[in-house]
């Protein structure tokens, strides 16, 4: 890792390659500092964060209950399943042109594409989590004459939690992808907009800053979910 950074810096400083092309770590750091002084940078960040949180939050709010319901009811699955499968087969970003026709180029088109990106993996995971509930635990509950609600809350739900987290982590990646693509595609603000602008004006270092910010966002979201998950998973033997 360190070696790579050094080599990168060396190439950038040696002038062998036009800095326009690859910039350099110090160049990127300088650009980051300059950006952080700019008001509109923080606006961009705020716009992207809003899009992400609204879309991802809505995806969680819809996908978890719906996924559970789909796992519990075979009929419901028969009814809704074809739509979920179809949406799952579409790379959701291909729907962007349509979404922009429907919602315009403001933040709502991004919120929708973020939502669509994240909702499917979370939903499918929650559903398969219910399907994977262990029959032997359900037998224990039934043997104690547990009510249907008790079976759901004490057997099925705890078993689904890890599945939901897996889906949520995967969904977070899809959601970030939605933010980037949505903003690259058509937008008036946001980090993706910033990257696209910088690309058009050959500010390589700024593009790098933007890409790194997205990387950081991805890592942070997954790390947060990991921490949150551990609070639920005290009963699991820690891996080694």
């Amino acid at each position, binding site marked *: 890792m360190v070696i790579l950074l050094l080599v990168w810096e060396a190439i950038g400083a040696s002038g062998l390659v036009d800095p326009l092309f690859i910039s350099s770590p110090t160049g990127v750091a300088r650009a980051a500092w300059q950006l952080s002084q700019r008001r509109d940078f923080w606006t961009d960040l705020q716009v992207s964060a809003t899009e992400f949180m609204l879309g991802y939050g809505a995806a969680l709010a819809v996908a978890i209950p719906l996924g559970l319901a789909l796992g519990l009811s075979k009929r419901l699955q028969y009814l809704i399943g074809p739509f979920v499968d179809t949406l799952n087969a579409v790379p959701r970003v*291909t729907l962007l042109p349509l979404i922009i026709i429907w919602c315009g180029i403001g933040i709502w088109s991004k919120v929708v594409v973020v939502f669509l990106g994240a909702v499917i993996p979370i939903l499918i995971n929650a559903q398969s989590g219910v399907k994977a509930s262990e029959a032997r635990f359900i037998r224990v509950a039934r043997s104690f004459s547990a009510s249907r609600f008790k079976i759901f809350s004490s057997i099925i739900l705890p078993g689904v939690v890890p599945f939901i987290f897996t889906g949520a982590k995967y969904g977070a990646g899809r959601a970030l992808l939605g933010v980037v693509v949505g903003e690259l595609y058509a937008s008036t603000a946001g980090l993706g907009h910033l990257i696209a602008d910088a690309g058009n004006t050959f500010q390589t270092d700024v*593009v790098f800053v933007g890409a790194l910010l997205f990387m950081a966002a*991805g890592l942070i979201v997954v790390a947060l979910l990991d921490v949150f998950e551990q609070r639920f998973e005290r009963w699991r033997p820690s891996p080694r």
Partner: protein
Amino acid sequence: MPAAVRAYLAHERVILGTLMVLLLLIAWEGLERGWWADALRPLLGDSAQRLRLKPIFISSPTLIAAAAFRMFFVTGEIWRDLAWSSAGYLLGLVLAVAIGIPLGLAGGWYRRLSYAVQPFLAALNATPQVAFLPLIIIWVGTGLSERVLIIFLLAVLPLAINAHAAVRTTDPRLIKVAGSFGASEWQLFRTIILPSSVPFLLAGLRLAIGRGMIGVVVGEIYGSAAGLGAMINQAGARFQTDRVFVGVLTIVAAGVILVEVVQRIERRVEIWRTPA
């Protein structure tokens, strides 16, 4: 149980699924043609007109079917886009397989290499790789190589990560067995690691196929001369909603076919696996 009920229960899945899809299609068609607006007018008065939507807004199943027929069989224009996009897609995918799988396998096999490569894989995996698109454009401009590169970048990670995981999760008992027979490192790799990796690799390939599809659309955002993505984008900009749908559905169909092919192969390869 009466025979009719039994027949229904036996095919409930198909019946209910088809019913819902048909309902949706009819509802959709009705929105565009104003069926619902007309039907609800006595009830809702003029506000029922809101249920009459313009074709540029949602199009309709029949309009889309008509557009698809025209584009495929009358003007045949879509074939050129399809060929153009497929070229970039296949090149990107092949490149991703050629680099991602060996890299992942090697990373799983040589611990040192794994230490070196792992951080990059993890970081890159957490990033929406599309964020690098403007960089790629600065490097190679727009065109075939740009599209190949973005498709490669999207598809390579699931392949490399799965290949890495495949080697890492090889059953240690099998490795012990091979070791006790005095297998050389190469023999061990060829007879134990590789066969047990195949399911992982195919699963990675399935993911990569889907990821690559994103590249087709995204890679053609910036004024590509032709291609499905470009076609969708232009149609979107001109509010030709039916053409957008045709493009999206074509991509979906291509994706479904490719994934189906991989699944066929998976089933063929995995006959030795105990059914789950």
